[in-house]
């Protein structure tokens, strides 16, 4: 199916564990983004990528790692999860810098 998907949709983990959130898009969009959504903070950019093998930090990158070996995938890893990383995570893709974002359905992560 065409589109942008995220997995898992829901995840519960414990403090200190490593967690990887997956994002996959089928359009071959160059640009991909990871945001977290927290009440009262809107969406905050964690990392973004302009193309395969090109990534850069956003507003709140600490504690997260990304990679982009293939255009269609943009996984986000929490190296050692903390309770403050409990959030809803959204992946998005975009064809160019002037076009709209397509958002995935989100991953709700709870860190106990």
């Amino acid at each position, binding site marked *: 199916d065409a589109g942008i998907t995220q997995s898992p949709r829901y995840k519960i983990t414990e403090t200190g564990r490593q967690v990887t959130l997956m994002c996959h898009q089928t359009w071959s969009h160059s640009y991909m*983004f990871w945001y977290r959504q927290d009440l009262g903070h809107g*969406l905050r950019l964690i990392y*973004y990528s302009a193309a395969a093998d090109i990534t850069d930090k956003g507003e709140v990158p600490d504690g997260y790692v990304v990679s982009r070996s293939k255009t269609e995938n943009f996984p986000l890893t929490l190296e050692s999860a903390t309770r403050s990383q409990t959030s809803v995570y959204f992946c998005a893709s975009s064809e160019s*810098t*002037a076009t709209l974002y397509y*958002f995935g*359905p989100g991953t709700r992560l709870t860190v106990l």
Partner: protein
Amino acid sequence: AQSVAQPEDQVNVAEGNPLTVKCTYSVSGNPYLFWYVQYPNRGLQFLLKYITGDNLVKGSYGFEAEFNKSQTSFHLKKPSALVSDSALYFCAVRDKANAGKSTFGDGTTLTVKP
């Protein structure tokens, strides 16, 4: 650095009345501006955008937005609100010079009452 402000956390309107959701922005250069809507437990969906051209932009579901450069505003409007318009609305500004990363406002919850 670019920024977006949505001064109202909550907007309440009666069905059939016009609605406005406010957005102001700060960006160097010419802005790329967007509105997105989020329904409960869903991802964000695109409503409309301003890149260049006419200041009045029309989008999905009867929404429109007016770009005002002097006031650095991009308010979302609809002539006649529907109960189904109730959702969380986000304004965003996109930095075309920096991989197109977007800065979002904190969101405005729109409630349309029958």
